């Protein structure tokens, strides 16, 4: 069991290591929240592989549903306001 898990764990950990800096390096807020959603999904994968399905479900619903929804709404409003200023 553990022997087959080790490659999976390495892949999941590598994905986390890859996507965590990607979130920070995506400077545009819209791009950042999308990359952050992907990062959340990779963490979900990691939690499942490490045997914590309950935590992974919480992570899934918060990082891919609740959090992006609220942030996207706020980004839409800021963009609209910025567009308004350019019109003036």
């Amino acid at each position, binding site marked *: 069991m553990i022997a087959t898990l080790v490659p999976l764990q390495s892949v999941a950990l590598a994905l986390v290591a890859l996507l965590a800096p990607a979130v920070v390096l995506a400077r545009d807020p819209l791009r950042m929240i999308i990359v952050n959603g992907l990062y959340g999904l990779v963490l979900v994968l990691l939690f499942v592989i*490490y045997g914590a*399905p*309950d935590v*992974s*479900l*919480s992570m*899934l*619903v*918060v990082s891919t*549903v*609740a959090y992006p*929804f*609220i942030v996207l*709404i*706020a980004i*839409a*409003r800021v963009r*609209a306001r910025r567009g*308004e200023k350019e019109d003036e």
Partner: protein
Amino acid sequence: MTRRVRIWIFLPALAGLAALLVWGYLGIPGFGDYHGPYGFVLDRLATPLRHMDNVVNATTYDIRGFDTLGEEFILFAAVIGVVMLLRDTDEKPEMRDEVESDLVRVFGTLAVGGAILVGLWLVAFGFVTPGGGFQGGVAIAGGAALVYLVAGYRAFAAFGDEQVLDPIKGVGAGGYVVIGLAALVSGLPYLTNLFSGGAVGTVWSGGSAGFVNWAAGMEVAAANLILYAEFLNQYIVPIARRS
């Protein structure tokens, strides 16, 4: 401060933090190396005592249900705070639906049903399979939020009606407290599981923890939907009104 100076201040700080992290990581125990007694006790006793397969759910909604009660009211208070700050006094405008792709509408609407069904299943069977009131509640609210994404604001407004959501949120949060009080009235400690004893692996296995899960699910789903509705009213409606 020039960019050069900032980098020279940043580099030693980065090196220090990196050294601390490496030092810390070298000392952490291996995966699964656990010595505390509670994990083993719960692992052995949760299923025989409470008839619940999912030890995590048995811990959060029964054995340490009191902690979750506190968390419940953190969310309750936080959402009330957001509602107070964002309360929109303006009349809701007439809005046309923005989503024009039929494909998005059809498959999105199917996904709404799927998401809500998964959410209900997570709440109902949280103590049997991974899940619980919180996860299920957010999933149900997510399914309803999908209505906005696939059909537009007007279709979502029915789900975001505070006249409906406020009582659900209150009954959920209050129901949790009342289930705890029911045990107290019966002469048992607060939140003691009253009729645990159903067959392991069935929807009846959780006893009153099942009702605690439903109370939490109602509260979380309604609280999230109120949050989404408030944000949409505050941020999206003004944009649509102008255009």
